[in-house]
């Protein structure tokens, strides 16, 4: 089974939000809903400020609380290891939305829960997710961690990486790499 992961190099994100738009267009995400977001975090006191731009999306956790919470197996682990939702089986109980510590899910206007799929329809065609393809700063990098020579494997070997809310024990598959703060903030 492949182990698809996304590595986000936060220092390369230029905040163009093209990923947010590309995702909406590719996946026909309904108005006022999003599968991915960009967080702009400014720390410090003027003039000693540091800004970090960080993309966030479904972490396709290995220990996914949304799968455990689902009463119908609509939220499930697909054969490629990603976490997917079967919109036909979903009854819209919203338990998965509450269970996700990353707020990655939303309620689709048609009643089912919805979230990032890592563009599984594109993966089947051998393409990369739309957000990765469109990323101008090459901040989003996608690949199979099981392939030792893949770009993601190499990046995670070379850099210190972190995941969001590691203490939650969900074992996310979206990794963040960044250099240490320069200004001692």
């Amino acid at each position, binding site marked *: 089974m492949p182990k698809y992961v996304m590595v986000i190099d936060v220092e390369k994100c230029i905040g163009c939000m093209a990923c947010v738009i590309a995702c909406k267009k590719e996946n026909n995400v309904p108005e006022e809903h999003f599968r991915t977001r960009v967080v702009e975090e400014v720390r410090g006191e003027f003039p000693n400020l540091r800004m970090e731009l960080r993309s966030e999306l479904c972490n396709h956790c290995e220990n996914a609380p949304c799968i455990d919470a689902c009463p119908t197996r609509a939220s499930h682990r697909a054969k490629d290891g990603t976490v997917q939702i079967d919109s036909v089986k979903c009854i819209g109980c919203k338990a998965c939305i*509450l269970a996700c510590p990353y707020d990655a899910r939303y309620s689709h206007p048609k009643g089912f829960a919805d979230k990032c799929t890592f563009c599984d329809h594109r993966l089947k065609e051998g393409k990369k997710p739309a957000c990765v393809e469109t990323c101008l700063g090459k901040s989003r990098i996608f690949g199979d961690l099981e392939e030792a020579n893949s770009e993601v494997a190499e990046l995670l070997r070379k850099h210190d990486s972190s995941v969001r809310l590691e203490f939650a024990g969900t074992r996310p598959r979206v990794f963040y790499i960044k250099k240490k703060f320069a200004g001692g903030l």
Partner: protein
Amino acid sequence: MTEITITGLNAITHPYLEVWDWRIVIYLFLGGLSAGMLVMCSIANLRITKQPVEELAQCVRAPFIAFIILAIGALFIIIDLGKPQSLLWGYLTFQPLSLMSWGTWGVPAVLVANALYILAVIPKDQRHKLKFPFLIKIAEKLAPKMRPIAKLNFAMGIFLGIYTGVLLSSFAAIPLWNNATLPILFLVSALSSGAAMIVIIAKKNEIKFLFTKIDIWLIVAELVIILLFLYGLYTSTAPYKKAIEPFFSFTSEQFIFAIALIAIFLLLPLALRIKLGELKEFEDGFHGEFTKAQIFRMNFAAVLVLTGTLILRAAIVYAGQLTKLSPY
């Protein structure tokens, strides 16, 4: 200082979770109420001495009312579903780790056990009211088995009472809910509200008095567990400590939660005071008759308990969604 701007927000999760609303509050309240009623009326029916031929249930109407209450409660969670037309999928699988799945199977199971209970406790002279001959036959067959059915309903009531709390406590992403005290708190408040409801509906004075007494212990336990629940979170790590802030905040946005906590700690002790007053009037034992004022006081205390339980559940459901594990 940290300033956060986010592009691509979903209103259901930002700035606060707005996922479960009043429909879930009513489901949890009615589910707990019917659970408490089943447990309490089973206690009443199992207390009577064993009969050689036909059991004479003491608590007859409570199972019927508990059934109606649970059915209405279940209706509220169904109307909360985004796709109720797909509900069948819930019955094609059982997911042991999903509390929703336990509810999907558990609530109908409780309703079935409850329906058996209704038939088993109907007195002989009232069976004709069942209209359908097959129901009368079933009631005749179930009547001698009233005790095992009462025991089954006792267990089902405990399951349902705990379930309403575990449903919330299973969400690790929600610090206010994610602790082991919550299911116990919800069970005790369910039992307390069940006892209160039976006080209100009971026609027999000895039942009214019995549950007025039982509820005293349950209210004391509930108040102690609320304090332990809040203390447990206060002494925990940052997100958990933050989760109880709404209850102690007097900002305009969260004032309602402080009011809710104050209301709970006014209503329940007031009910306790009234009940203890009633008990004092019968220090030398209960001899069968109440004055109208005594009945009013007992019913009034029971209404206070029910109101307190509803406020408790609403406050926990809504306040829980204000704090997340994540800092934003």
